[in-house]
């Protein structure tokens, strides 16, 4: 994942200086899929992922227009806002991630339905199923590293951890996923 391009910096400048909605629309086009995907793998529901994605774009717009700080990494900003929105969502709804088998099966079913919609392969469904069984932090680090292609240092900044911690987390998460997928047997 590259740092913000010059074009993105210019768009952020236009948003901050002239509250240019169309410029923000261009940033939306660039980030909407990633942010949606990031949230989707955390909440396991298409509907909630859509609602939270909407919230992220509104919150980020407000932040950009209110803050006096320089925005060095818009990419990290969007993911941070998304991460916090998911945390707030779970706090407000008092949802325990995977507290019963019944809940888990429901969520897997939702995922299956969505997977059907996007015509992913059966293998992918199975992988998604395994992902839902992982600890939230493992799932997050795997998605950021392998799906969104963030560097270790970028993940460290985003998760507010050291690079060493992220490496350890990534190793453990990969091993846990492999165990679930039966690759280590």
């Amino acid at each position, binding site marked *: 994942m590259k740092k913000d391009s*010059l074009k993105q*910096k*210019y768009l*952020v*400048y236009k948003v*901050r*200086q*002239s*509250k*240019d*909605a*169309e410029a*923000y*629309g261009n940033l*939306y*086009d660039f980030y*909407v*899929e990633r942010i*949606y*995907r990031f949230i*989707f*793998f955390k909440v396991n529901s*298409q509907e909630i*992922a*859509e609602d939270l*994605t*909407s919230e992220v*774009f*509104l919150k980020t*717009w407000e932040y950009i*227009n209110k803050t006096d700080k*320089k*925005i*060095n990494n818009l990419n990290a900003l969007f993911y941070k806002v998304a991460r916090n929105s998911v945390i707030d969502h779970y706090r407000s709804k008092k949802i325990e991630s995977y507290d019963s088998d019944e809940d888990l099966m429901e969520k897997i079913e939702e995922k299956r339905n*969505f*997977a059907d*919609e*996007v015509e*992913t*392969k059966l*293998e*992918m469904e199975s*992988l*998604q199923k395994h992902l839902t069984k992982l600890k939230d932090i493992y799932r997050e680090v*795997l*998605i950021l590293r*392998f*799906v969104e292609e963030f560097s270790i240092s970028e993940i460290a900044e985003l998760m507010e951890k050291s690079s060493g911690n992220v490496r350890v987390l990534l190793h453990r998460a*990969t091993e846990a*996923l*492999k165990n679930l*997928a039966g*690759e280590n047997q």
Partner: protein
Amino acid sequence: MDKVIEQLKELRNVRPDRDWVASHRELLLSQITSQATAKPQSVVVNSWFLAKSLMPTSVLKFLARPVGVITAVFLVVFGSGIFGVSASRNSVPGDLLYNVKLTGEKMKVSISNTREQVKLHAEFAAERVKEIEKLVVSENNNNEEKKAKIIVAVNGLENEMKQAQSKLEDAKEDNKDSVVVEIAKQVDAKTAEISESINKNKEQLNELELQKTLIKAQATVEATSVKAIEVIIEKKNKGVPGIDEKALLQSLDQKITNAKEIVKQTEETTKPVETTTVEVSEKTAEVATVETTNIKPIEINIIDSKAAEKTITEAKELLNNGDLTQAIQKVAETAVITTQVIENQETETTVVEPVTSN
């Protein structure tokens, strides 16, 4: 590479629904546009922020001091006037650049779609109100000239509001329901601001004719807000989700209160016309015939005011019974009657003037 890692990379194919992405984009832009009241900045400030956004912090720090010194010297030598914002933006009726401003607005409208046109007309109406504010407090010794300029701005305001109403009617047919609802909400909020601002200006004006003109404009502004609520109710009846019924009821209740207030103000401004007619009849026997013709329109006004009050009462009853659709139609009827009352008064005023001069 591990198979599981390869599979993880395949998850990039998980994407949001395309229709959702497109409709949400439009909704988002519509929401943020309502906050997007850009403050005009000078070229120097803009250039500084652009540099700040694009350059790495280290380079910026290195350049900042000498650039700051040079800019300060430049400002001292040449003054800041040349960096001012476009002059036409701040012009008012009577200024040389006022027509440039109006032409620019028309251009914007002509290249926009119906939904954007609704918002633009509401924005331009708010701009006319700002012009009225400036003119009211301006120190112009020529009262007639000042009055004429205020009337130009008020007419412009009415015109923008009527256009907004017409475009809102067109927007009812628009299938992007959520976006239309959002725009209607924004128009409702904007009209509330405009109406409040008109009230402040009315208090500062002693001239009866100007007060009447402003009340008429206010009635048109209220009619626009009623149209906006009508659109929201229609979309709600169509099954559009996310419309807060409680907020809608409160808003409708507010419209009824506003309609009452306008009817009351209209009745109050009718009284001085009646007095003038009596004075004329006492002074000159020849105007006795004219007096009778003058009284008639005032009677019509009183009847119309009563009709307006009746529709308001009916609207309130319908609202209490939860019939939003019929209630808003009654409020709309009140707005039409009130505008007619004021227009009748204007016709009456023009009849009286030549008689008193004889």
